[in-house]
């Protein structure tokens, strides 16, 4: 039997704060750029990283695009985000380490509190840990290195594999894609670079963990994953930050290429503190018979705008996006999924579930596009929202652009308000109102949670329970 909510009820009661990752670490960064964005800041980032000239030019060009593009008028409210009040680059240590003992002790302790070295020992094939702007620690099993797998911070990859890097960087998400992809392209730092050679299956997941520590920090990791023919990978990212009264910004760009017959699963467990603007662009290209699976869990943040996309570019390619969002007080999760069917006999599946409580807001924004010539397309979309009280809000904006006749598309959407009758039923069986509500939420989220590796499924179940503490309905 799987785990259930009340098991950890005592733990919940003992937890003083709902957010257990909100602790701060005192650090001595080796470099901290002044607040705000300017050409000088960008030049300094590039100088600190000792980058090739083309990358500096790329950054500066992106900065020009960023300045020209207006802030998005749709989605969540970004008006309160003061881009001049953000640190765009903080370098926490001199160089990236491959031994935890060489990482400054306060940073190492931080990741220990987050359970990273433990997870690395137990069930990961490789681990990256980013603190502020830079990856401070990186590892990969020797057996995978021997098979030609590359797993590096994106900065290291630019140095070590310049040609491979240049071939793919910015090809899936160009700088001009949107305001925040332009920003990321201008100031990117850290993130993961992964190359899986033809036919190599990575059995255990690779994980990268992103920790924001400073107040008003901007974290702009850049991730690029290339899966060659018939290869497969499961990459997991986790994110947390301390709780501050003023805003921080996390704006990542993730580009993925899955070549013929390859498979990529990208799992996100985002648990930002409630002062983070999380404005992320994620997109994958899937070629012939390739498969891309985004599994996306969004707990926390002040505002998240994130719509993982799969472009199905080769015949028989498959895209799947499953997402779970939890919005509490003063939070808005504006999330969704985009699938572009650009080749025949491609298929896609979208499952989106959102839970809103205490006035939280959840939005599903989705796009299914079937291009001319993409015949025999199949797509299934299911969006479910669970509202725990009358103050919370859920909206669904599905968009379909279908240019072919020979397609099978099904779309289902439900909004459910947690019911007095459901709570009463569970209460007559001895569970108190909070346990009952927690059980209902976990049951609602379960179809997505069971997609996660076991260790994370347990963690997620527990996180949802923590989110559920406090008033209900």
């Amino acid at each position, binding site marked *: 039997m799987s785990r*259930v909510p*009340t*098991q950890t009820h005592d733990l919940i009661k003992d937890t003083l704060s709902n957010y257990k990752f909100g602790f701060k670490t005192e650090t001595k960064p080796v470099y901290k750029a002044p607040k705000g964005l300017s050409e000088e800041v960008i030049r300094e980032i590039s100088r600190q990283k000792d980058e090739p000239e083309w990358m500096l030019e790329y950054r500066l060009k992106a900065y020009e695009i960023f300045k020209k593009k207006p802030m998005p008028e749709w989605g969540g409210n970004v008006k309160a985000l003061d881009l001049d009040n953000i640190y765009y680059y903080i370098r926490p240590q001199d160089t990236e380490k491959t031994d935890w003992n060489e990482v400054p002790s306060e940073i190492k302790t931080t990741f220990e509190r987050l359970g990273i070295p433990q997870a690395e020992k137990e069930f990961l094939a490789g681990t990256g840990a980013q603190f502020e702007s830079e990856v401070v620690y990186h590892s990969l099993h020797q057996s995978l290195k021997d098979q030609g797998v590359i797993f590096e911070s994106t900065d290291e990859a630019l140095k070590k594999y310049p040609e491979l890097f240049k071939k793919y960087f910015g090809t899936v998400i160009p700088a001009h894609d949107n305001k925040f992809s332009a920003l990321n392209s201008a100031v990117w730092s850290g993130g993961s670079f992964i190359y899986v050679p033809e036919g190599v299956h990575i059995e255990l997941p690779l994980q990268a963990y992103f920790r924001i520590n400073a107040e008003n920090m901007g974290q702009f990791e850049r991730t690029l994953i290339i899966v060659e023919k018939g290869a497969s990978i499961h990459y997991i990212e986790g994110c947390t930050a301390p709780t501050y009264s003023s805003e921080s910004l996390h704006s990542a760009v993730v580009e993925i290429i899955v070549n013929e017959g390859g498979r990529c699963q990208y799992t996100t467990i985002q648990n930002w503190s409630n002062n983070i603007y999380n404005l992320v662009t994620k997109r994958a290209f899937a070629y012939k018979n390739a498969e891309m699976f985004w599994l996306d869990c969004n707990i926390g943040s002040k505002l998240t705008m994130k719509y993982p996309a799969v472009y199905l570019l080769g015949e028989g390619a498959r895209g799947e996006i499953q997402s779970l969002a939890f919005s509490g007080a003063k939070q808005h999760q504006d999330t969704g999924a985009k699938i572009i069917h650009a080749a025949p006999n491609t298929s896609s599946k979208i499952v989106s579930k959102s839970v809103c409580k205490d006035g939280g807001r959840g939005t599903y924004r989705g796009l299914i596009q079937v291009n001319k010539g993409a015949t025999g397309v199949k797509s299934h979309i299911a969006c479910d929202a669970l509202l725990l009280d009358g103050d919370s809000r859920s909206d669904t904006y599905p968009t379909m652009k279908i240019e072919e006749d020979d397609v099978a598309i099904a779309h289902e959407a439900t909004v459910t308000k947690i019911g007095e009758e*459901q709570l009463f039923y569970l209460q*007559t*069986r001895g569970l108190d109102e909070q346990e009952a509500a927690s*059980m209902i939420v*976990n*049951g*609602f989220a379960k179809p997505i949670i069971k997609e996660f590796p076991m260790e994370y499924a347990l963690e997620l179940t527990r996180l949802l329970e923590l989110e559920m503490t406090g008033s209900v309905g």
Partner: protein
Amino acid sequence: MKIATNPTTENSINSHQRPTMNTLEIIDIHAEVDGQKILKGLSLTISSGQIHTIMGPNGSGKSTLCKVLMGHPKYEVTKGEALFNGENILEMEPEERAKLGLFLGFQHPIEIAGVTLGNFLRHSKMAITGEKIGPVAFMKTMKAKTEELGMHRSFIGRGVNEGFSGGEKKRTEIAQMAVLEPKIALLDEIDSGLDIDALEIVSEGINKNFEQTNCGILLITHYQRILNYIKPHHVHIMHDGRIIKSGGAELAQELEDNGYKKYV
């Protein structure tokens, strides 16, 4: 009145010895929902080892009585008392009443998507008994209880009432009763929506539970049919929020022959 002197136990989980006597005393209870008066002075005492049946036409307040006794938040008690072993339960939360040993078998059991029956019931059992029960031991009990009720054990792994037929839901209610071993069970139209075979199985389940635990049962029904299988000690006719006539098992037969008209 029948008192089982030595309740049989089958395994480690269902091994709690009951105190010999539990009593639920309902005294002149008045209750309303949305400003509408439904219960208008109902009194009834149910004790261990007794099966009471309340019969009555639609709208007489039978289901309301169950909900009021279990503490549904929509129903307001305006007058009267309900005492469980002398303690007033009307200010208690539903879960507190469940922990005392009250159980309600729902007329319309509620679906809880994604929460498996086995999981839910294990936590329910732990909440009620205050004792930890391992999933393996619990699974054994669950399997036995569901099979007794003619349910495939795969039900244990399905979402609570999720996609269950009407009959399956009712069997599940009785399986829950069998696992939770209440002291006083209120069964609200447990016979509705059951075909004759299912009715027999559900009735057997109730009888077995009654014999094993010596609980008190309040059986609410429209029809005499279930009384072919479950023999009540007391039959009450309810109308317009009150009990208007009480008698022994023979009263049910009279009702069957004459209809409610004679009494209301």
